[in-house]
């Protein structure tokens, strides 16, 4: 069982094999202005390593664009373009079309360069949702990665449709009458699956090899692919910066954010979740944004997470072949 929070061994073994697996080359370099312990900038660094050189990045407006591109500096050693907040997917689709046409006409080198668009939860799930839906539906050879830190961090921690139920944000604050965000998080990976996207995955930088493998896989897809990456934001979550990685692991171990991939409609868990999932309380308790929660409210969250987990497991099991199911029963 890969539970690093209570089993430091797996971290050790990670250090053992990681250098062999992970490129030393940096495409997203230091000196940028992200906060200490920013999960989003770490995830981008890992993503770039997995993508490699033949990539063009389109970045939606948001924390990552701001911290990485303060003129005349740039943290990007990949070709990179930022246009606006709602349109990373559309710009990325134009990049893809441009590269495709120019390559076909012999105007650029004859090799595959992948268009990769990235955005925060706001730039992806809210204001960029239409552009994303359009780009995915049009089947561009493009990977879209949503870095979901569960609020509009760049503008000061406002609620997005990725904000968890009851989390306190600056536009859905925990007040005496209304205890934070009143609705459940939008399930964007599921909506991407409904777009018939060939490869959809969830990820977090807390499982770096898993994340990078998914990026590599998504890169290979000749068509649209989508990765939903949960990233810690110490500033917005009101968490100590050193808990960045731990929180991603707790999100998995509680079943709040399972890591899975959907290939051609087939669901598969990529990192095992402990048989006995940790209570959601373990994930919620260290975070300032959930500080106001009562035990009853935590119970409501627990029940919802249980249901979502079971729903996912049904899909995972339905995706298994007869042989896999038989093997599972005899185990």
């Amino acid at each position, binding site marked *: 069982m890969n539970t690093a929070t209570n089993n430091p061994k797996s971290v050790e073994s990670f250090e053992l094999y990681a250098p062999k697996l992970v490129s030393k080359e940096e495409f997203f370099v230091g000196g940028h202005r992200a906060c200490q312990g920013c999960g989003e900038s770490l995830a981008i660094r890992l993503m770039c390593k997995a993508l490699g050189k033949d990539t*063009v990045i389109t970045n939606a407006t948001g924390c990552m664009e701001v911290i990485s591109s303060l*003129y005349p500096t740039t943290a*990007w050693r*990949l*070709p990179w373009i*930022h246009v606006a907040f709602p349109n990373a997917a559309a710009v990325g*689709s134009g990049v893809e*079309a*441009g590269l495709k046409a*120019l390559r076909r006409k012999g105007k650029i080198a004859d090799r595959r360069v992948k268009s990769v668009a990235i955005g925060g939860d706001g730039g992806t799930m809210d204001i960029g949702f239409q552009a994303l839906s359009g780009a995915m539906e049009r089947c561009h050879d493009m990977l879209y990665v949503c870095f979901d830190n569960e609020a509009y961090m760049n503008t000061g921690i406002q609620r997005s449709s990725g904000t968890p139920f009851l989390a306190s944000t600056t536009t859905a604050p925990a007040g005496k009458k209304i205890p934070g965000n009143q609705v459940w998080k939008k399930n964007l990976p599921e909506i991407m699956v409904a777009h018939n996207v060939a490869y959809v995955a969830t990820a977090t930088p807390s499982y770096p090899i898993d994340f990078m493998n998914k990026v590599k896989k998504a890169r290979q897809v000749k068509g649209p692919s989508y990765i939903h990456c949960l990233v810690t934001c110490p500033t917005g979550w009101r968490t100590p910066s050193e808990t960045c990685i731990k929180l991603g692991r707790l999100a998995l171990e509680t079943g709040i954010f399972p890591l899975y991939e959907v290939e051609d409609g087939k669901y598969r868990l990529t990192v095992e979740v402990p048989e006995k999932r940790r209570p959601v309380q373990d994930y919620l308790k260290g975070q300032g944004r959930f500080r106001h929660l009562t035990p009853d409210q935590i119970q409501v969250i627990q029940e919802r997470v249980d249901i979502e987990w079971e729903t996912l497991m049904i899909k995972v099991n339905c995706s298994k072949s007869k042989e896999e199911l038989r093997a599972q029963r005899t185990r």
Partner: protein
Amino acid sequence: MGKRIGMEIALAAAEAAALCRPDVIAAYPITPNTHIPEHLSDIVAEGRLDAEFICVESEHSAISACCGASGTGARTFTATSSQGLLYMQEVLPIVSAMRLPVIMAIGNRAISGPINIWNDHSDIMYQRDTGWVSLFAANGQETVDMVIQVFKIGEHRDVMLPVNINLDGFQLTHVVEPIIMPDQEEVDRFLPAYVPYAALHPDNIVSMGTLGMPEIYAEAQKSKNVALVNSKKVILEVWKEWEKQFGRKYEPIQSYRTEDADIALVTMGSMGETAEIAVDELRKQGVKAGLLKIKLWRPFPFDDLKKAVKGIRVLAVTDRAVSFGGPGGPVFSEIRSALYDVPKRPKIVNFIIGLGGRDIQVENFMDMVRRATKGKLSEPYEFYGVRG
């Protein structure tokens, strides 16, 4: 050699765009520009043009996709109208700031409130200050010629700016006119391949669209303005080349019978042709009338205007858009401001005409001239022939 053909102008605009061999076209349907992207998709589907046609889900994505494609060094084209153009607005100043020569044909149409699909110039006037080169065509031939010219203008190393060509919705887009359509060989000779200054490709890494702090933002704005102002030199050069190769002359402001004129009408777009007839009629009646047709809207041709109004006592400026609560129509306030320093400037009056497709006929232009000559309008500007 080009051939004279009879063709709907929107289709001719699409044919002209295709002759320029764009690599990527992204557009979204909206009346009255729709026939342009439709016809381009036809041309691509028939295999007459090797391009990516992106059937986007909105105009915001159309211009965004063009921006991304242009960033890779692809030659890009789009077309829209009215609400579609407004929907693009967020991205328009970014395209010009990135110095990407995206070309757009605008089938001009009124802005909603109430919704109206007919022609006026409100849509482009909302975009006046987005930093694009902006031209107005008066007929089908000008539309076709300008579509080809602007690729050369926008892509020129001394310009590197997006360009829009305005053609009046319906009055131009849906009208069949005799047009001399250049052939592929002629266009290839006129228009060199696009060589981008920088392009998104791993062989030559760039960051485009970075964050500008107060120390640099103002310089970025100034440099865009300098580029736009300086583009006029290239526009004039390209028009010279065009005249040499195709024999058709283009000027920022085209004067019609103004040599000895006392009074001149000012128009932009297709109404210039109606106004010409009005001038001829007035001349027959002994009125010394003339006409100025503005073809270059941005960068605004200040010197040409000053030259063109020499000797003219009264200018009757027509506008096809409203600046609500402002000094008059946008063309009017531009011209008044441009002539403020001229010691012997004409008296300038403003008629706001043809809003949302309201018909303006020869007799109306004649009436405007007569009234402007008398010199008295009840207001500095007048909604011509409008009730209430």
